[in-house]
């Protein structure tokens, strides 16, 4: 297996297509907005169609489980026959389209034991409602400004559990789900989880009406409507466990096999059952697994689980994993400081902000000089909460006298190393402190949002642990430039390399404890001919950009790669695999639309050796290019154009703030060489190592590569923003004048 190859100077160094805020155009790159239908029954097959952009030359669909396969049935319509082998466990997998223009972003694909029904178009009236039987699921799409209709048989006294999944499957749909009788009278409405739990009072037929809360519709507003006799889990307690093998959890929900009444009611007013199970007895899947979680959940380990009732599995739910002691469970009657529940340190306690305006108090013993981290996880568990914590350190002398320090209050975590595209700022709590004396930390927890509604599902976990240095990594490709004219767009991200392409991937470090050292980045699984530019997240930095180049790819490739970060912590080397992340929807203007992101199941890479970068910039010589602070620097460059890109190109220096006003470097159509002359003194570039690119707007005609093995005449007028590979310069201080001898 090829590991990293250092980026070699003198090799062809093509331009990078870097999606930054100023990007204004792109070369065609495959992106998938929807796969429909988005599921298949275990052991069955289904024809699916992919929607998106630049999906030419379809060659296949790749899934995150080897038991799911696909073959192309219609290249032009992007249709595939998907087969799910009998042994594939129920779960939410990921699908990616592969074609001439790359490997797309992923979309969830659901595998279940339910009978799959495809919703044809036209069910926009009660009269054209589509039937859905028990233990069936229908794949549908919302229609703009109209509801869509379905119907189910109603049997007196027999519970109906109808569940609509949308956002958790990357849909834009925010469903409003209504259950009506055959006369159109309303019977029930779906809750926030898209669940309708209704027991008919008479035999007959019930209609299901679905529309988007803002009346949107289209191919990106897909959903799955289940009519299930299986269980539904509303929430789990504790929401975090210490191990996935020995722990037990209590599930609260409906239709749970072997359950007993919990005495609790859901927000919809219906009683909840409870069932305590070993977590090892649940169906375990990978994240995200069809569970809608905020991006900030990434700091937690965990898994996605389902409860089976016979062959039917429940909805998926997330259980976090914090190694160490099993969580204590909040005892009631801890609403005042004098009745605070004592939790051993290090330790964690799982509780609920229930009922409305609940207050929970805990105390954690602490030792002098130890450094601790107090954390509250709630919103990061997917709860609609806003934990508000007052924490107070209280020293306890040997004689028992207490010396409280001023209480501190905490509202939210603003730190967001992921930036706009993977925003992990959240409303949970995180506090590092050093104990000045033996004593305890008193924590009073409330939910600022839990003011008016009794919702037993508002769980949280409070942990107090000794500081432990470490890090986690995220990998977020920034490869698809914004559409022409748009400067605030965020695109669906893919890592697709043409021959000679260089692409950046953002590697984000989530530092833990007091670890601030450097982290070296490497890649596993790179195909031959594809290299990684040296990459390191410097000390105290939160991210770095890793550049991949398809210098001389041996063959076309589609597959997963792994970014690995290594750092020395204490006296050992620690390695972490970066978790891949993905943007869920294209955003036209991030000042007007929210950006949704999630974990992905793999860092995908595709290489097409039959497609070549239009403009390639070669740096002549080895970097770093060195110059004196009071001198000048010359960087020789070579240019090669492939295809119909005949206009003059004006390159700007991008990445060194002092060079913002550096004059553009014009390169004419037939020009193959030029030099970049930088007067370091004039532009006051400070001493140190700097990296920059050459950026330009390119216009021309893009020639499509062979599609499905056949040459094509297809061309497309393109205007795109391109970036050269990184160029490293070292500015050295001026030497001190030699002292005169006396």
């Amino acid at each position, binding site marked *: 297996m090829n590991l990293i190859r250092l980026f070699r100077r003198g090799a062809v160094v093509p331009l990078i297509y870097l999606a930054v805020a100023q990007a204004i155009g792109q070369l065609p790159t495959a992106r998938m907005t929807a796969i429909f239908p988005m599921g298949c029954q275990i052991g069955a097959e289904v024809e699916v169609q992919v929607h998106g952009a630049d999906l030419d030359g379809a060659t296949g669909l790749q899934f995150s489980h080897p038991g799911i396969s696909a073959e192309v049935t219609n290249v032009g319509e992007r249709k595939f026959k998907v087969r799910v082998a009998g042994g594939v466990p129920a779960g939410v997998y990921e699908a990616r389209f592969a074609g001439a223009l790359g490997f797309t972003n992923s979309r969830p694909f659901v595998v279940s034991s339910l009978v799959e029904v495809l919703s044809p178009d036209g069910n926009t009236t009660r009269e054209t409602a589509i039937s859905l039987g028990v233990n069936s699921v229908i794949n549908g799409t919302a229609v703009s400004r109209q509801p869509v209709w379905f119907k189910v048989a109603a049997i007196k006294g027999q519970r109906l559990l109808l569940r609509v999944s949308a956002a958790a499957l990357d849909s834009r749909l925010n469903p409003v789900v209504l259950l009506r009788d055959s006369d159109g009278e309303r019977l029930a409405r779906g809750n926030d989880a898209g669940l309708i739990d209704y027991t008919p009072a008479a035999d007959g037929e019930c209609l299901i009406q679905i529309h988007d809360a*803002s009346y949107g519709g289209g191919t990106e507003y897909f959903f799955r409507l289940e009519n299930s006799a299986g269980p539904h889990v509303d929430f789990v307690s504790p929401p975090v466990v210490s191990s996935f093998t020995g722990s037990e959890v209590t599930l609260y929900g409906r239709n749970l096999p072997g359950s007993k009444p919990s005495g609790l009611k859901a927000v919809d007013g219906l009683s909840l059952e409870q069932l305590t199970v070993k977590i090892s007895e649940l169906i375990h899947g990978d994240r995200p697994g069809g569970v809608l979680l905020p991006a900030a959940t990434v700091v937690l380990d965990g898994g996605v689980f389902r409860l089976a009732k016979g062959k039917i599995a429940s909805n998926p739910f997330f259980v976090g994993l914090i190694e160490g002691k099993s969580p204590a469970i909040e005892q009631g009657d801890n609403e005042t400081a004098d009745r605070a529940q004592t939790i051993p340190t290090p330790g964690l306690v799982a509780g609920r902000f229930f009922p409305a*305006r609940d207050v929970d108090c805990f105390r954690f013993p602490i030792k002098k000089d130890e450094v601790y981290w107090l954390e509250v996880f709630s919103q990061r568990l997917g709860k609609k909460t806003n934990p508000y914590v007052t924490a107070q350190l209280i020293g306890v002398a040997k004689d028992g006298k207490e010396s409280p320090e001023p209480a501190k209050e905490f509202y939210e975590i603003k730190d967001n190393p992921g930036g706009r595209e993977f925003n992990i700022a959240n409303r949970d709590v995180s506090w590092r402190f050093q104990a000045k004396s033996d004593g305890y930390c008193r924590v009073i927890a409330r939910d600022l949002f839990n003011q008016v509604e009794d919702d037993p599902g508002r769980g949280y976990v409070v942990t107090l642990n000794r500081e432990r240095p470490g890090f986690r990594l995220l990998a977020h490709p920034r490869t698809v430039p914004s559409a022409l004219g748009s400067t605030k767009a965020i695109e669906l991200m893919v890592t697709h390399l043409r021959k000679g392409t260089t692409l950046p991937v953002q590697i984000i470090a989530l530092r833990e404890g007091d670890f601030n050292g450097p982290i070296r980045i490497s890649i596993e699984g790179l195909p031959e001919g594809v290299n990684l530019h040296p990459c390191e997240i410097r000390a105290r930095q939160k991210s770095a950009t890793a550049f991949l180049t398809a210098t001389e790819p041996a063959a076309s490739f589609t597959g997963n790669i792994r970014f690995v970060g290594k750092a020395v912590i204490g006296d050992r080397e620690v390695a972490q695999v970066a978790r891949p992340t993905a943007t869920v929807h294209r955003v036209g203007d991030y000042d007007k639309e929210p950006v949704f992101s999630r974990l992905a199941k793999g860092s995908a890479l595709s290489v097409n050796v039959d497609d070549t970068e239009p403009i390639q910039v070669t740096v002549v010589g080895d970097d770093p290019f060195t110059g004196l602070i009071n001198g000048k620097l010359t960087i020789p460059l070579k240019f090669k154009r492939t295809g119909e890109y005949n206009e003059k190109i004006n390159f700007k220096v991008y990445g060194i703030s002092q060079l913002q006003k550096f004059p553009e470097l014009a390169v004419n159509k037939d020009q193959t060489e030029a030099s970049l002359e930088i007067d370091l003194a004039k532009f006051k570039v400070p001493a140190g190592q700097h990296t920059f690119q050459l950026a330009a707007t390119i216009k021309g005609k893009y020639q499509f590569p062979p599609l499905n093995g056949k040459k094509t005449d297809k061309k497309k007028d393109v205007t795109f923003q391109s970036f050269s590979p990184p160029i490293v310069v070292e500015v050295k201080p001026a030497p001190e004048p030699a002292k005169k001898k006396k």
Partner: protein
Amino acid sequence: MNRVTLKGADARQQLLVVQTLGDGSVADQTREVALTAEPAGLVRITDGLVESLANGSGVITARNPTGETASIPFEVNAVSSEKPVNFHNSIVPLFTKHGCNSGGCHGKASGQNGFKLSLLGFEPQEDYEYLLREARGRRMFPAAPERSLLLLKASGQLPHGGGSRIDAGSFDYKAIVKWLRQGMPYGKPSDPSVEAIEVHPPERIMKPDARQQLVVLARMTDGSVEDITHSAVYEANNREYAEADNTGLVTAGGDSGEIAVMVRYQDKASVFRASIPFGAPVDNLPAGRNFVDDFIFAKWKQAGMPPSEMAGDSTYLRRVILDIAGRLPTVAEVKSFLDDPAPDKRQRVVERLLRSEEYAEYFANKWSALLRNKRANGAQLRTTLAFYDWIKESLYNNKPYDQFVREILAASGGIDQSPASAWFKQVSSQQAQMEDAAQLFLGTRLKCAQCHHHPFEKWSQNDYYRFMAFFSRVSKAPSGRPGEEIVFHRAGVAQVTNKKTNKPVKPAGLGSGELKIAPVDDPRHRLVDWMREDPSRLFSKTLVNRYWKHFFGRGLVDPEDDFRSTNPPTHPGLLDALADHFEKTGYDLKSLVRVIATSTTYQLSSVPNGHNAKDMHYFSRFQPKRLTAEVLYDSLNDLILARSNFGGLPVGTRAVCLPDNSYNSSNYFLSVFGRPDSSSACECERSQEASLAQSLHLFNAKNIHEQLAHKDGRAARLAADKGQDHAAKINSLYYRAFARLPRREEADVALAYLTREATDKEGKPADKTKERYEDILWALANTKEFLFNH
């Protein structure tokens, strides 16, 4: 009071002479009798006002034209001793009485022509300082008080923009002279002050054109009582029914009704209430159905106001469906209802409507405007839709009203966690939150009290700021979604600074003491708790009154959000009973609607009998109400079978289901018929006034004519329908428009129009059936019967 005691040279007492008539009623005779004092020379009596002249005692006798007499002893003493004048008690009220410190003159913020007084004398200390210090006190000349500029101008002896306000030599003039002569004392801190004022009688039944003298007493903090009848200010709330002059004489007009006269003295206010009965016999009343009828019927009897007949089934069905669901009844509903012989069918209709989504949608339309669910740009669509949906679902699920209010005022979170937090987006400042909350949920308009004591009510600036303090810990932060925020309680001491005193004040309900609220506790919850527990019960009363007005077109207190002692309810007992019912049912809104809509009172015809055409107070007939903009728009569409097409919403979305105000600008019909812009917590923002523009729009609007002529419209369908004859079609049109069959003459006119020969331009026979149905529909839509809920 059974004795007149006058102490001092300036003492005076207004007498009340009351005659009890044979039927037990009482009549004021103060101005009708001759009053004499024996011995003479001790007092002077003018129009019942007794003034001291010399020390002594005697008897005052009243003799009416028929020779009947009554007498009362009197005593005068200390005539020669002169009491020090207290500026606040004796002088400031004169400025108010004579209009000097009104908001239109020297009492406005900038004063008038360089002379400023506090509005209505609410800041006596400031007034005193100003008079004495401003321009070196040039307005006063204690050495020769009558030469003071203050008096020369006020009496018109020098040019004065405000004209002559005080007659030279009058009692009030002399009071000011005395004060000046005494050296303009302010008064001692130990001087008694006014604790409360009382109006006698507090209420009365008066005949049309009758007169009633009022006596106003000030109860002082030292237990003494002073007659301030001729120093108080009187304002009748409805001059159509009564007038009050500056001596406290109330004169009833010629019409029957309820009157209230506000009496103001210093910062105190009280009210005199009178009923002017119609006096007609009230016999053969219909059967009452619930407690609403008990109170209403009792008032009819008291007022001598006989009610109209009961409304027929057609009228009731159309009315109740419009009022509860905001739409016309369908033809099937009308036929089914009219054919139903069951005696409880009206109650069953109400029950069915209350279970429907249409009830929730229609009332959500009302609440959405009051809660200022307003959209300025497309980015706010998610917010306004979510807020509207929350309102609608709350009503559909019959959420208890107190919980509904709590979820608004104490909303915490963003749109996803708490859609009601959208209220804080539009009502964004503490001041606006407080004023809206007071107006919307307590029926109290506090705006005036920000700068000064409320002119018509007892609320002070301190009350204003203490109420605002409930919102002092509301904080907002970005939610993570562009343009959206979360609302939450930020821990801390809840307080605001009273801008007048510059001192911090803590939260207190109106008229209540300051609350102790821990910093971590959200004071907004304590506000809602107080609203529920407040003995004045403004919380319940405001809501029941608002809903009463929804059905009857006029509140028991009107305007419906202007509860104050000086704006009393027409039926105080009924208001209390409705509030009782509302509270006992757990603030059940549907139950309230049920009680109102099933009462006999609600089911009366709008057709006046010979007596009640002008009745505005007794609810003796149903008052027709023009359909609101949204209801009219939908009703017209229903009649002519047009489908609305509001941007971004499903085609056919009814106007009553519009989630926010933004559709007004693109729909002329809605704006010309007064759909509110959701800019205010007042229902008065909705305009129900008639205008020429409305009539012209209904007559001539191009889009209405296009819809009339649409190939899928009702006219086209009727013309194409060969399965029914014209008579049947006309019947169905009348059912749809009016919930009734056409009268014989109406049917004849329509049939004749439909069946007469038609020719084209060349004179050849032509089929103009479709056009004729268009004309008939147009005509029906432009009738008052269609445009009004009657």
